[in-house]
């Protein structure tokens, strides 16, 4: 039984791809699925620090592809979840150390072993992007409500549609609800209308994200975190569960109580 291969991409850097990968992977693993997260950002790896696994790296993605180690040797098990792994990117190599064919092969092999293979794509639309996308059957495009991020997301969606990738979903990250209410930020509706890709969810802007990254513990482990529960719902939707989107922006006393009870 082959698992799902999902690439998380954005075009623009710094919109929260790695955070999204870490939180989606962790949530799916908490749901008892076997998950491997693949850092395809060769030369600028970060998934390891976001997951708090930076001091356990021995082998990396390029080592697997060059046959210097077995796949299992490069996989690092999560500190909390025994069914969650990461494969770090090489830090001192170039993107050209890997080609799309090799990535396709590797992802297909990983999908035989795991329920979910989640690929962290580098920023940009060059070789690194092509490598990261090659082995995926589903794409999650992350954007923030800013003009530059949306423009780049649109470009990436165009490239994905032109490739064989047909399942493309959108995640809006760092939405500032107050600013939207004041009319000083594009709303979820505005962004969907511009990009016309099905929405997987909206993550509110939150200091908690910075704090969890500082600690190297994904936010979805945290109870009562608004951004964390947004990521959890996104993971559930990605898993085919139907959860209404409008809960994402919900706040207030009852929203918080609900999160405390249900999370």
């Amino acid at each position, binding site marked *: 039984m082959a698992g799902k291969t999902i690439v998380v991409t954005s075009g623009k850097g710094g919109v929260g791809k790695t955070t999204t990968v870490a939180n989606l992977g962790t949530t799916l693993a908490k749901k008892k699925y076997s998950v491997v997260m693949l850092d395809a950002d060769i030369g600028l790896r970060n998934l390891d620090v976001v997951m708090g696994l930076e001091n356990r790296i021995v082998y990396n993605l390029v080592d697997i592809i060059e046959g210097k180690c077995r796949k299992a040797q490069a996989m690092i098990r999560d500190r909390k979840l025994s069914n969650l792994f990461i494969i770090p990117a090489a830090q001192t190599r170039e993107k050209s150390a890997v080609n799309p064919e090799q990535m396709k092969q590797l992802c297909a092999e990983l999908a035989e072993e795991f329920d979910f293979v989640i690929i962290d794509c580098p920023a940009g639309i060059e070789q690194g992007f092509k490598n990261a996308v090659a082995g995926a059957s589903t794409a999650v495009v992350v954007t923030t409500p800013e*003009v530059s991020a949306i*423009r780049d997301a649109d470009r990436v969606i165009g490239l994905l549609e032109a490739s064989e990738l047909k399942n493309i979903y959108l995640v809006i990250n760092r939405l500032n609800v107050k600013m939207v209410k004041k009319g*000083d930020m594009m709303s979820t509706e505005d962004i969907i209308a511009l990009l016309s890709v099905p929405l997987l969810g909206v993550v509110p802007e939150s200091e908690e994200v910075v704090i969890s990254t500082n600690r190297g513990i994904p936010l979805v482990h945290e109870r009562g975190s608004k951004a964390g529960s947004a990521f959890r719902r996104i993971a559930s939707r990605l898993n085919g569960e139907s959860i209404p989107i409008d809960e994402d922006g919900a706040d207030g006393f009852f929203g918080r109580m609900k999160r405390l009870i249900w999370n």
Partner: protein
Amino acid sequence: MVSLLRRFFGVDKQSGQVARKRMQFVLMHDRIDITPDLMEAVRKDILDVLSKYMEIDGKSLKVDLEQGKDFMALISNVQVKRVYRHAT
């Protein structure tokens, strides 16, 4: 304070709406991949064709792409000075 007043009296539009409008325009151009050079070439060609039949004010000729709800339109406005009696 001044900016608050400006907004209150509707001088400044809300920046979210400004962003949305700008993005509609930018994405449309990105998607069809028309560069300003290409638009200029289209403008020149339209000018040449029209000039065969009428005297027109070249400077007044404007060519724009506009996004309708389900379609895109090329809209061109030009001031005609005189139509030639015998088209060549």
